[in-house]
């Protein structure tokens, strides 16, 4: 469990550092998605703290410690929001690519800031 949690945090950190280090706008958007994947995984790992099986009652009783469905349910909202923001950013990057074919953020910053 500890290994799982550690790798989740590493994923988030790698994703975040990628948004800073990568110069290309597309890479920035992709690394941001890596970061959000890490956070989705964190919610899933959180859910397994109480057990691993799906909460299905057999004969009216829960016979094994089951996974918490709440974090898994709420993270769906975050996944949808993440997808829509991702799409918006990619559309904007597409439009920007016409005049800035390299999509290097420092150059774009210099032009438009």
């Amino acid at each position, binding site marked *: 469990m500890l290994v799982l949690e550690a790798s989740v945090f590493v994923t988030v950190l790698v994703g975040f550092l990628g948004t800073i280090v990568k110069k290309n706008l597309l890479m920035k958007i992709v690394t941001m998605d890596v970061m959000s994947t890490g*956070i989705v995984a964190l919610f899933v790992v959180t859910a397994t703290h109480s057990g691993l099986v799906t909460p299905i009652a057999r004969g009216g009783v829960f016979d094994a410690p089951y996974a918490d469905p709440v974090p898994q349910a709420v993270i769906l909202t975050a996944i949808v929001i993440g997808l829509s*923001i991702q799409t918006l950013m990619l559309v904007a990057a597409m439009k920007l690519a016409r*005049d800035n074919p390299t999509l290097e953020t420092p150059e774009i910053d210099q032009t438009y800031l």
Partner: protein
Amino acid sequence: MTDLAIAWILLPFGAGLALYLLPPLARGLTLAIALVSLCVGLGITINQVNTAFVLLDSFGISLSIDPLSGYFIVTNALVTLAALLHIWQERDKAFFYVLLCLLHGSANTVFISADFLSLYVNIEVLGIVVFLLIAYPRSDRCLWIGLRYLMVSNVAMLFYLMGVALVYQTNHTFAFRALMQASPEAVALILMGLLAKGAIFISGLWLPQTNVVAAPIVAALLAGIVENTGVFSLVRVSLLHSNIADIVRLFALAAIFFGSIFALVADDVRRMLSFSTLGQLGWIVIAPPAAGLYALMHGLAKASLFLSVGELRHYRLSELRQEGLPRPVAIALIIAGYGIVGVPFLAGFPAKVLTLSYLEPWHQGLLYGAGFLTATVYSKFLFLPRYPSKTLIPLGYRAATMVLLGGLFLANGGYTEAYSSGMSLLRAALPPLVGCGLVALGVSRWESSWRGAWERLEHLLGVMLLLLLGLVGLAL
């Protein structure tokens, strides 16, 4: 009560979606929504409504309505109303009305939500709407600034979401009060997300250039509604525990001086106003119990300042000093500016007295000193040459300014006790006088067109990492 509240929340969203299909209804429906929210907000504030309800289970959405949310809802309603009046004559902007409705609705929901997850969802919806508003003219520059905003806000909210997961781990609930038992890392992550969204101190450096590039009406919406949502969440969180309030106060103090000093040396009116916003947002969060009145005052005054700036042909102060500005616009700028400075009979005065009354003496001294800086910034408007307007000032602008400045006068009623002490009246008169004196002596010539490298995307993101490390240190 619960049903009514839910209907009121859903109304703007339903209207926003319907408007897309029925553009002719746009103006009427948006007006109705703003007026309903105004009534709801005033009702909550005047009757001191204080209720909380949980929908569904203990994990479900919980809402809490108190006078603090009332003030923010009134601000939201008045700014939406002013924006609507400003574009009233442009019938063809159906998509703009849709965005206005969605912005209004999601901001209202932020102001009454009492759990971290619904706060997250609404702030993200708001972020998407703001991106669409900024990118509305579809020029490359607007797209880039919008994209930058979306990226910074999304990364900040991802950190926030991580904090929320940690809060759930310890407490098995998303309610705000669970933060008190949460681990320090969770507190640091959540505070970082909210500080970046609320544009407090250096994490708010995305703000100045966003306000410069966005259309004036969008800048007014940003200052009046969007920044208030981030600030409101910070206020709610700092009301939970005095330790959190202490951390937030530290950042607020830094923001007040940082924003005011950069506003003083900015050479562009829009940048000056945005940096002043950075400082004023610090004033809002420094004393959580007084935040409502201050946010109302600041939202109205700043929105009217940005709308007035939209009527100008030049933005550089050096050009304005030569060319002058139309008299009606100049008068609106001066009234709204001195409203923020805290001149008696405008809402800024009671808001400042109320804020100071919640602080310790040495904080009061520091803030009184910062008041001189703010006064110097806004006294610049007094010394710009004015000429009678040759072209007609648009009706929409006049109506919007009437609403905002009228609200600024009426909001005096929020804390009438401020006028009972002659001492505070006397103290309020000093900063504007000194500010005028300093501008007359030539302080306003210290201007630079310097654009800091720290406003680039990489630096905005990098600052978050530093902030996070600092916050973890503070929270431990």
